[in-house]
């Protein structure tokens, strides 16, 4: 899995209320509609600024707060390719894997806003094209790789009829 795009930078502790506010998420299952409000409280124009495959680059504890799966889904439907952060909150992290949104733990201090990035998940490396450096990636646990490779938890269940990590 490869992604190439521009970095949109955010700080630490970006919570799920910022990713998609509760006032929207309870109203609809239409993720395209929700996607328009992604990150709205932190950057009102975020949705219109994102081009296909762009990357959210953040500090530590990204996705803390609620368990709403609308958060990764809204990011995905806003055409964001992957989220890079120093660390993630655990429910959000699981939800990303389950819904097939790639999440990458790495030192995001090495990335500036607007940098052109290339993410190669299979090789486990990020190239910061603007800065001309490679950034190592913290590998995912085996179970998560398995679920991601199956395309998310739903396809995993369809394939095996339940959990199968053998």
């Amino acid at each position, binding site marked *: 899995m490869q992604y190439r795009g521009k970095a949109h930078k955010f700080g630490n*502790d970006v919570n799920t209320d*910022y990713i998609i506010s*509760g006032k929207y998420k309870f109203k609809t299952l239409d993720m395209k509609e929700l996607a328009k409000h992604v990150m709205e409280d932190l950057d009102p124009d975020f949705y219109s600024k994102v081009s296909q495959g762009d990357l959210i680059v953040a500090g*530590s504890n990204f996705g803390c707060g609620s368990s709403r799966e609308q958060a990764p889904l809204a990011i995905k439907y806003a055409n964001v390719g992957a989220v890079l952060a120093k660390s993630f909150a655990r429910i959000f992290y699981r939800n990303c894997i389950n*819904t097939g949104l790639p999440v990458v733990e790495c030192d995001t201090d090495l990335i500036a806003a607007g940098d052109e990035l290339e993410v190669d998940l299979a090789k486990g490396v990020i190239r910061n094209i603007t800065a001309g450096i490679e950034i190592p990636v913290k590998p995912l*646990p085996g179970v998560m790789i398995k679920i991601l490779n199956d395309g998310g938890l739903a396809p995993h269940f369809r394939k095996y009829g*339940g959990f199968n990590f053998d």
Partner: protein
Amino acid sequence: MGQTIIEKILSSHSGQESRANDIVVARVDLVMGQDGTSPLAIRAFEDMGGAEVFSREKVAFVIDHSSPSPIEGVSRLHKLMREFSREKGFRMYDIGEGVCHQLIPESGMVGPGSLVIGADSHTCTYGALNAFSTGVGSTDLAGGMISGRMWFKVPDTFKFVCNGTLPPGVYSKDLILYLIGDVTADGATYMSAEYTGEAVSALTMEGRFTMANMAIEMGAKAGLMEADEKTFRWLERYTDKKFIPASADKDAVYARVKEYDVSGLAPQVARPHRVDNVCPVDEVAGTPIQQAVIGTCTNGRLEDLRIAADIIRGRKVHRDVRLIVAPSSKTVYLDAMREGIIQDLVEAGAAVVTPGCGPCVGTHNGVPADGENVISTANRNFKGRMGNSNAFIYLASPATVAASALTGRISDPREFVK
């Protein structure tokens, strides 16, 4: 080598001896979803090829987040939940019954040693009953509904030892806010928090639920306590089911241990817009407020309403303040009525809303205006949390919120508590 509480529960439910960082697939005793997460779970259930739920007795839906429905879109999602639960034959708690994290403990389905997943981040609340319960997303929820199982990475444990005695006017909410302020919003990320010590043993079950509830605000996967006499006495009202508690071994291995003496603790307040932005009440005392909220899965229980009523009784809510009270369940509501608490609060000027999440998450029931300050007993004060990103939310104990509602400014409740 001994085991922590969570290692024991994951061992008993996975059939394999579990240690921190192992990956296990464990059976779950209960799977719970609320109205913000269940509709997506229903979609995932179908997408996974699910036909029936693994057990009709072990799955529950709760409509509490936007309850009763404020708008058409929500009504449609509620209808979907009603139809799905009826078709599959499992229990659904409809509007007016309460917040999921009060209803599930009251259901008697969860007790010491249980393992629960819930599609709500505050599912960690049942840790007060010595259950490993944790929040998951909708897709995990669907997987649990179909298979009755879930995969877990066994977390490290962060042990919080709380010694001493809480002074008058200082409550478990103040203690947990203090702990969160101390270790910060990601201080226990991915860990299981174990709360122990004489100050924790001295808490009522209600006080313990508050502490377990907010474990997620420091990033923890669970907030666990040992079961004791109080736990079993509390459960007696709701079930005669027998549970096998899990206690930590003396030689259990902890990733971190911190000791606190709570005897000198002052009432605490979390300032906007972070739960770990905590200070003693006197640092913010005097800040004018326009809305006060008593309720939510953190502090909407009988004891909380009683503490508030004891302060408010015979007085009037400040004319510039709207006081909103949301009992956490119908049972709490009825108990509070019988004790005259509701009468006292309403006479003082409170608006009592339907048992449920109330204004907590900004869907209805009290969205603040631009520039307004709210003081609330809830667990989150993120920008926009209550539906307006130009409002400011302060978090505090029911006593501090009640005192502030009377004066119109953030106030130290110790002036009102005899």
